[in-house]
């Protein structure tokens, strides 16, 4: 055991992990912050409930129907959904930044938000008779179709091409956004405002079914991403180095992009487009501590969860009863961060 690392030995030392102490401390602090935010989020809202009343409701001894509704139907599912969505968007961004080796990559780069937006806005404005319960599935289908199209366009016979992925992503996304904008401009005013509300990315409407769906997705997709973390580490060295180390580049890239698409598409289908989480969380994780890929992914996931939880809480509590969608809050945080990132990169290049 060194001063900077801690070695975790499991199953009679058949698994031994060397973990950086500082990163573990940061992870612990963020976990504590998330728990604190969960408690705060369950206790604060427009409906006045004492801490004792919330505690009784969670224990099942509170008899007031309104209190039960507020805690179990409104606050609890949206709190959990915020964390899960944050984890998924953040990891999607981390995987994309790794595979494209571009620090500005995030899920909107590969058309996920735009595909979902086009599908949902079309259903609201052009086919308003479509059942609202089909919206998440339409969003998922839209995301997957567009992401698959961009991948198909950007892959050539020889190998995957990150620059082509970015360029096709920007082009296809811009094309889809223009169609969505046209529908919003010319569509019925009430339907258009309903579509705009969805586009703002809100966790307000999430329920326990959504939490289950997101939980299942996290439980399946996150371990798969962690399994790929060693290969992701070799990708950081560049494609030639990775190939010389025997890494199946094409497979890893396909797998990472597919995981990134699945994570962001499922999250977007539930809450709508949540901008900048996928961009900000991996960078914040890197700013906080330098670590191996697996630890970085865990840290990124936790920061993503905390970020969306704070954004949702701020959006519902700061200006209550006005409900600011979490997507708007994450963008308010994300845009200055993006500018900071670009300026700091320019400074590095100038040195």
């Amino acid at each position: 055991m060194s001063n900077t690392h801690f070695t975790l030995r499991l199953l009679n030392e058949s698994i031994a992990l060397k973990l950086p102490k500082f990163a573990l401390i940061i992870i612990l602090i963020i976990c504590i912050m998330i728990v604190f935010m969960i408690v705060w989020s369950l206790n604060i809202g427009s409906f006045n409930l004492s801490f004792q009343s919330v505690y009784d409701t969670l224990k099942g001894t509170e008899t007031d129907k309104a209190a039960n509704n507020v805690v179990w139907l409104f606050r609890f599912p949206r709190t959990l959904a915020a964390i899960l969505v944050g984890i998924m968007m953040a990891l999607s961004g981390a995987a994309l930044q790794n595979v494209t080796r571009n620090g500005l990559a995030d899920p909107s780069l590969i058309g996920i938000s735009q595909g979902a937006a086009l599908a949902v806005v079309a259903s609201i404005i052009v086919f308003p008779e479509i059942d609202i319960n089909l919206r998440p599935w339409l969003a998922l289908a839209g995301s997957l179709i567009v992401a698959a199209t961009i991948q198909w366009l950007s892959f050539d016979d020889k190998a995957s091409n990150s620059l082509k992925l970015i360029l096709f992503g920007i082009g296809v996304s811009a094309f889809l956004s223009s169609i969505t904008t046209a529908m919003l401009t010319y569509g019925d005013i009430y339907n258009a405002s309903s579509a705009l509300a969805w586009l703002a990315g809100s966790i307000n409407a999430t329920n326990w079914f959504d939490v289950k769906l997101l939980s299942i997705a996290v439980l399946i997709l996150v371990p798969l991403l962690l399994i790929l973390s060693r290969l992701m580490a070799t990708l950081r060295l560049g494609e030639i180095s990775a190939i010389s180390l025997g890494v199946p580049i094409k497979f890893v890239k396909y797998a990472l992009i597919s995981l990134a698409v699945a994570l962001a598409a499922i999250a977007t289908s539930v809450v709508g487009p949540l901008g900048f989480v996928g961009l900000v969380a991996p960078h914040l994780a890197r700013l906080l501590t330098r670590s191996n890929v697996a630890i970085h992914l865990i840290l990124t996931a936790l920061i993503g969860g905390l970020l969306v939880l704070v954004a949702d809480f701020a959006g519902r509590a700061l200006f209550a009863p006005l409900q600011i969608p979490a997507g708007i809050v994450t963008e308010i945080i994300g845009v200055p961060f993006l500018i900071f990132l670009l300026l700091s990169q320019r400074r590095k290049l100038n040195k």
Partner: protein
Amino acid sequence: MNKIILKTIAAIGFAAITSFSFAQASDMRQIKDDVGRDLQVPVSPTAIVALHDSMLTLPLIELGVLPVGSDGRTDKATGRNFIRAGKSLTGIDFDNSSIKYVSSDLEKIAAVKPDLIIISTGDQDILDKLQAIAPTFVIDYDKRTRIQIFEILAELSNTVAKLDTLKTRYNQQIQDIKNVIDTQNITVNVMQPSKGKILVWNSYFSLGKVLRDAGFKFPKIVNEIKPGERAQFSAEKLQELDADYIFVTYRTDRNHTPQNTVADFEDVIPNFCNYLKACRENQMLVMPREAASSNSFTALGLSAFTVLTHISGNPYKKLGK
């Protein structure tokens, strides 16, 4: 013997009172909402939440029902919440009534303990949660005319008699116009300049209804717009949009004045008045948008009065002459 009779009468009285109270509290009826859901709603709801100010709350106020909670607007400069056209059309707003501003905050809605919630299809994403608070009736604006929205609101709030009175007044106002104006031979149009284009509806809400019901004619290009929808035109179409009388509006809820609308027209084309005969002949009438567009019988009345007083009795220049 007398004691027995008195006790019996008292018992019957008590039973009658309690059963009446119970019936009052529990009187529910089944109704199908606009998205096909069968709902159990109170026969006479006492605590309604309406999640759209100008489409749902205003009509309820005019029907004599003060909702316990409503969505509304926020003045960006002061942060004040208000019901659009609430004070100008009904005299009632959040700051002088018991109506609470709930926005679409589920917790605020739960806090006012409604026994009926009325929403539009635009709020369906939170329908399950609203339904957990109270029976929630969804109104589809695409399936109902504005009068039909009034009718379902009157049915839900048990105020059909009041609606009949309002309808009678409106029908008389339309008849008053027909009595003194040869509406069949006058063309009219309602335009809204916006971002360098002209928006035209078929027809423009309350004012449009008054003009149609009174029998005025509209330009062909307007009749070609699908009923209930709007179209956007460039300045090139101004002459096709021209009519004997043109109505334009300005937003009072944003402290706009008629000058804002004139400026918006100038954005469409400089010296716009040269291209519209109605404007050149001083037959372009300006009125507050809230009175022309709100879902309100007061708005219908104001529109009817504006039409009556500005068109009747005045010699006017016919388009093309």
